């Protein structure tokens, strides 16, 4: 039987491809996989006005879909992909981001994850501002959107291996008509790791014409891939031909073009002199993190390591012959790639493969944080995480936690099925990953994520729960991303107060706080914890990548009043936003828009039972030294702080006594900062937005107010 004969179309929905107006089609594609409903929904002006797009639309639709007791694997849970009004323009770098929103299996509340690749912009050009998928299919299905013809199908196609590096290539071949047509296809897929763990992620593909290869970017955080597989989705596939820069039908094309030309010139002349992202990608952060005590080593115990120099340089590994933008027009092109990497382990052992990455987070997670300083190990782990559909951050941070438990005798070889999970054992790390992906052995426990592992280790293996709470690097159930926050109170709160859990994309304040010492007071930190999360949220509303904002800057940036905000780029973004939508928004307007969505998400957390002060708590490992070993590794620093900050003479005190005093002080500082931030944000001392705040931000919808009132 040919592949076409084996293809079974379950549902067909025809629609009129709609021209975008000022960045919007004002409609959503709704798919229910339980009863195979496919329909268009209209987005009202009021909804657009408040929620803007991207993450805002994801939150809006998910709010309608779920109740406070809906679980991640209930059919009511949705996966929503949306990218926002600016997404898809090709004149400016970093304009193709999608945001994926769902209820997370590890946090129980909303997760949002941003991702490049072509799917989101193609979806817009096909006439949809968002894709909303609910229900569960009986068997593995592909949801296929043919944006050229205006047809959506739910279909069963012969799939075989579900791991992304096989499936995405196969589906790209299957749905394209020629080599030249492959650039018009984008696939969203995951892998067996998403079937068998709660840390599944989604890969969004884009076709690299020059290298004739399917490339991928990841919506990594919070187990979105696990939801995807729970719904028996094998893939979303989209086809759209004839991309051009004007498909958004912007209000002011010239304004966008002028802004883009200026920025491309800037990237071409400045990036080589600055971060050189085009050659190094985000790996350029690794030496900076190591030099400044910020690189997680051995489950976030330490921030630097002498062997880290072995994993800081990557230029020689990357292929530099093509362009590495994950959407058209991204001249920053940080999506680096390694070709011809020979695998040493696992089901594809001996094969030579393409590895997308690594990015800084992956280097920290599966390298330094598990005590392995070996580039080939990092590439191997990066490849397998990607193809299995496993988030590198949650895997690495989770593995590091397991290793510390193993070294402390909480786990042993009997429990791990023979795996010797000491820091630095790269074979054991890889075996753990393969077991997670296969749902085998100790991998079944490891794949649950840190929060669930802590419970299992206490209940089944008699672990001390306080110790696990201290060293288990998760907040709200999401594993920490890869920065040591011990010396940055602002970053501790950035992690602890982030709506989705411990991810740094809301606020990355470590440098401003610890190295530059620009935000010394609680009020300074609270102000930074207001501005940065709000401005960064805005990128996710409109479809932008954050990196071109502040990883490359204009020549005169140091001569501006607020160089950390890169004022010229903020101006550029206003030009793009206003140029596309026809608005005349100011910086205050866009911060207001973000603040509304941000507060709505905070209330959403409340709806799901995790939106209060107690849920903004963080493991002590991210605040200060838990163990004697940790304290003594930085004894001089901590002893000085005892004297200078706390007013306690360390002489004659045991390390345990000093740890206790430092801990009391640091925990108190954290609580004071939380109070200050709540006040700045217009929240109660329990972290709940007040009714006045909701009203001011125009998110005082009756059900929102009703919910909040119950908690005031």
């Amino acid at each position: 039987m040919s592949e076409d004969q084996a293809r079974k179309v379950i549902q067909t929905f025809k629609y009129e491809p709609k021209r975008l107006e000022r960045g919007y089609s004002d409609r959503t594609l709704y798919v229910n996989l339980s009863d195979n409903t496919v329909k268009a929904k209209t987005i009202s002006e009021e909804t657009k006005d408040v929620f803007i797009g991207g993450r805002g639309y994801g939150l809006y639709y998910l709010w309608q879909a779920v109740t406070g007791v809906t679980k991640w694997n209930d059919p009511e849970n949705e996966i929503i992909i949306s990218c926002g009004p600016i997404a898809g323009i090709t004149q400016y770098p970093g304009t193709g981001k999608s945001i994926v929103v769902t209820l997370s299996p590890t946090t129980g509340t909303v997760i949002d994850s941003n991702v490049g690749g072509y799917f989101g912009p193609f979806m817009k050009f096909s006439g949809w501002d968002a894709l909303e998928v609910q229900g569960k299919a009986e068997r593995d299905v592909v949801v296929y959107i043919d944006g050229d013809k205006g047809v959506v199908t739910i279909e069963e196609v012969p799939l075989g291996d579900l791991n992304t590096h096989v499936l995405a290539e196969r589906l790209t071949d299957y749905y394209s008509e020629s080599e030249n047509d492959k650039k018009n296809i984008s696939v969203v897929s995951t892998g067996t790791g998403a079937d068998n763990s709660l840390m599944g992620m989604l890969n969004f593909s884009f076709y690299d014409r020059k290298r004739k290869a399917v490339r991928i970017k990841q919506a990594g955080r919070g187990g979105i891939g696990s939801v995807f597989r729970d719904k028996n989705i094998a893939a979303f596939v989209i086809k759209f031909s004839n991309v051009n820069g004007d498909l958004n039908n912007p209000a002011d094309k010239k304004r966008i073009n002028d802004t883009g030309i200026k920025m491309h010139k800037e990237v071409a002349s400045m990036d080589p002199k600055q971060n050189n992202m085009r050659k190094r990608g985000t790996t350029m952060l690794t030496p900076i993190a190591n030099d400044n005590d910020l690189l997680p080593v051995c489950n976030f115990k330490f921030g630097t390591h002498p062997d880290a120099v072995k994993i800081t340089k990557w230029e020689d590994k990357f292929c530099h012959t093509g362009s590495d933008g994950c959407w058209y027009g991204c001249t920053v092109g940080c999506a680096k790639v390694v070709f011809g990497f020979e695998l040493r382990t696992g089901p594809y052992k001996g094969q030579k493969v393409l590895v997308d990455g690594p990015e800084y987070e992956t280097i920290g997670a599966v390298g330094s944080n598990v005590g392995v300083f070996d580039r080939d190990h990092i590439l191997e782990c990066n490849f397998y995480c990607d193809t299995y559909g496993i988030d590198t951050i949650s895997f690495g941070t989770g593995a590091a936690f397991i290793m510390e438990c193993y070294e402390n005798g909480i786990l042993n070889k009997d429990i791990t099925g023979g795996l010797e999970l000491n820091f630095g054992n790269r074979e054991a790390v890889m075996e753990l990953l393969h077991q997670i992906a296969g749902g085998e052995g100790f991998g079944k426990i490891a794949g649950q994520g840190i929060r669930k592992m802590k419970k299992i280790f206490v209940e089944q293996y008699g672990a001390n729960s306080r110790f696990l709470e201290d060293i288990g690097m998760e907040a709200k159930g999401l594993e920490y991303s890869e920065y040591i926050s011990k010396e940055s109170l602002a970053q501790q709160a950035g992690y602890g107060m982030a709506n989705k859990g411990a991810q740094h994309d809301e606020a990355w304040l470590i440098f401003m706080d610890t190295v530059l010492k620009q935000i010394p007071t609680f009020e300074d930190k609270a102000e930074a914890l207001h501005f940065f999360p709000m401005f960064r949220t805005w990128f996710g509303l409109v479809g932008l990548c954050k990196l071109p904002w502040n990883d490359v800057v204009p020549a005169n940036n140091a001569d501006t009043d607020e160089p950390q905000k890169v004022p010229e780029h903020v101006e550029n973004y206003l030009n793009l936003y206003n140029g596309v939508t026809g608005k005349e928004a100011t910086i205050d307007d866009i911060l207001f828009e973000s603040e509304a969505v941000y507060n709505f998400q905070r209330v959403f957390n409340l709806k799901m039972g995790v939106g209060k002060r107690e849920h903004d708590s963080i493991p002590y490992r991210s605040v200060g030294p838990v163990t004697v070993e940790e304290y003594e590794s930085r004894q001089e620093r901590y002893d000085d702080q005892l004297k200078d900050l706390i007013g306690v003479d360390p002489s004659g005190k045991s390390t345990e006594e000093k740890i206790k005093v430092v801990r009391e002080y640091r925990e108190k500082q954290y609580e004071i900062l939380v109070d200050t931030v709540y006040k700045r944000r217009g929240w109660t001392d329990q972290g709940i937005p007040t009714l006045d705040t909701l009203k001011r931000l125009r998110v005082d919808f009756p059900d929102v107010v009703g919910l909040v009132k119950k908690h005031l």
Partner: protein
Amino acid sequence: MLITLRPIGHLKELFPANQEKYELELSGTWTIRNIVTKSFDVDPDSISGIVVEGKHRKWDYEPKSGDEILLIPPLGGG
């Protein structure tokens, strides 16, 4: 006048000795631009911001004795 210059991150590579910091004894009036371009022949375009004692300073800032001047590359942080 004694000042300290600290290039952060990979900016270190642009300075001749690839050092963490440079202690400079200067006489007369100097701006940060002059120190960076004349004393070290470093391209100011590489530098995203200048922080002295926790405050942003511009290129024409004239450091005082004892100042520690941090030169920062663009640092967005993921």
